[in-house]
């Protein structure tokens, strides 16, 4: 006799059913996706993106006696390009809003709202949060929304990060935000995070050029911010504004450093090649290395996945301890890039 046939539902259908149920169980009630009349939307005056143009300008036209007339006119032209694509394709991503009295305040999607009005739309796809996002979360949403955009200036992006750090400290107390913490908060790479910190703490001349839009690249700004000598820094700023690549800037800075070092070494008697790096020495006393690593970790409050290596190290194996020590130096170089 043949074996009895067994029946069941297909794997694909089981997966489909389970996934659908999961979505409802985890997402209903948090926010809802709707079509909102544009007349019920207001902009957030605290949004890190500083559009000069506002709802009234778009609806009624920019007043000729407006002090920012020229600037707003340029913004309007750029909005018209977006309006054109909205006219033909609609808004692809819904804007994010929360309810505030009778109106809905935009968390993310100012330009899309303004452009949709320009395109003559009456409604816009929106995602409504049921509650006003908390200060820190609000900034994070605006940040993630904004970093995906290419037309945000470095100054605006830095403003964003500054706000996020401020909100974070408002919520968690006065903690020092180092690169690895910043990386945790906004999900950047460690090097990006340390670049942002470096630029936020940059000398005034660098900040000034960023605000004026003369330095627009984060990597270059971080590199220049790290130059200690004001003269060299000035040269680097000029080179950057003249369009030097990061590679060119780096080699320029290195040359300057060499020159400086040559000058210094002329006065000290030394033999052999110039010293360009610090030799960390060698020891067979493991306790020395362990003490250094422990001290640094506690002091810097390093919170990085690769710090795992220290807890996994076999402290009796010299080779492993060496590797751990090298890792520490590597991490420190990233951390104290400024």
């Amino acid at each position, binding site marked *: 006799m043949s074996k*009895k*046939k*067994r*029946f*069941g*539902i297909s794997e694909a*259908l*089981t997966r*489909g*059913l*389970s*996934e*659908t*149920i*999961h*979505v*409802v169980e985890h*997402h*209903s*009630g948090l*926010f*809802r*996706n*709707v*079509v909102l009349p544009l007349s019920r939307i207001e902009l957030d005056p605290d949004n890190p993106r500083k559009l000069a143009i506002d709802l009234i300008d778009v609806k009624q036209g920019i007043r000729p006696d407006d002090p920012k007339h020229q600037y707003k006119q340029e913004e309007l032209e750029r909005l018209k390009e977006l309006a054109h694509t909205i006219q033909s394709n609609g808004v692809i991503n819904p804007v994010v809003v929360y309810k505030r009295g009778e109106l809905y305040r935009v968390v993310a999607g100012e330009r899309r709202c303004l452009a949709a009005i320009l395109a003559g739309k009456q409604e816009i796809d929106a995602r409504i949060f*049921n509650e006003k996002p908390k200060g820190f979360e609000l900034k994070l949403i605006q940040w993630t929304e904004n970093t995906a955009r290419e037309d945000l200036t470095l100054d605006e992006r830095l403003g964003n990060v500054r706000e996020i750090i401020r909100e974070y400290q408002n919520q968690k107390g006065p903690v020092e935000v180092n690169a690895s913490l910043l990386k945790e908060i906004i999900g950047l790479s460690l090097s990006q995070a340390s670049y942002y910190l470096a630029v936020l703490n940059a000398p005034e001349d660098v900040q000034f050029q960023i605000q004026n839009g003369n330095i627009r690249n984060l990597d270059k700004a971080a590199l220049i911010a790290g130059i200690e000598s004001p003269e060299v820094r000035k040269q680097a700023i000029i080179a950057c504004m003249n369009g030097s690549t990061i590679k060119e800037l780096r080699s320029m800075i290195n040359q300057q450093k060499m020159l400086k070092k040559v000058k210094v070494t002329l006065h000290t008697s030394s033999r052999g090649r110039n010293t360009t790096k610090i030799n960390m020495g060698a020891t067979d006393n493991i306790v020395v290395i362990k003490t250094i690593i422990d001290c640094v970790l506690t002091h810097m409050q390093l919170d990085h996945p690769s710090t795992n290596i220290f807890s996994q190290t076999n402290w009796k194996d010299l080779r492993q301890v060496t590797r751990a020590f090298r890792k520490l130096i590597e991490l420190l170089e990233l951390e104290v890039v400024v």
Partner: protein
Amino acid sequence: MKIIAFVNNKGGVGKTTCSKLMAEFLSKKKKLRTLCIDFDPQCNFSHQYLHMEIDPAAPEGLMPPIHPDYNPNDEEDQNWDGRSSIAEIFYGQGVIPYPTYVECLDIAPGHAEKLLTAESVRRSEVVDKVHKQLAFFLNSSDVQAAYDAIVIDTAPSKGPLTISVIKAATHIIIPSVMEEQPVQGIYGMLQLWMQESLTREKSRPLQLIGILPNMFKQTRLHKDILKSLQDSPAIGKYVLPVKFSQRIVFAEVDAADSNPRSIFDFPEQHVAKAEAEEVCSHLSERIFA
């Protein structure tokens, strides 16, 4: 007021039978003021309680009979042709429910042609003209004051009519035969449930009471498919612990001259009656908890 809808986009899974049993249980047993709504252009649900007539304009379609309260000599009825279906909500007309032989059970019948026309409006108009209309009607203070429960039978589709039911409902139940194709219909309905849940406010969720195994036979096919749904960690908790078996008597009471007319009028010890009471009281406890 609870708005209960039986939905599944596969036909022949027992939506009408379940709707009928539920409506009769709520009105006869629970003494709740209940309104049946027939949202299926086939009008089978309406036919259970009214002598539906052939629509001369659309020979295949049914339309409601002349309303018992219609009086052509009355001033007030001058602008009325004497028939009223749930489809009037799409045409800006009032809906006048018909009484049934059960004391607190009314029905707003279907109207084949009008429902089909509403379903075929242009895509750009569908949101305003169809999706919102049923919710708008059921949320009116007249309806809210007149009934405790609404039971809606739907068309076997995922189209605008079904969507408008999903938008209006407070509770949905998905009856399904434990066979491959009807179970696929569950997926379509869960999708609608998901879309609707993501647009609703927290205060009025759309509750999925569950998947109701219907026309169940003690065969390997039905048992295995039921078990595979129950065994899935996500789906299992939505499979109802009660079920309707395949019984010819459920179909027999649907016949026009059936006596008695309702399963609930059968003798106390009747196996089909006991089953219907078990399933319906489980559903009603969940809904009116």
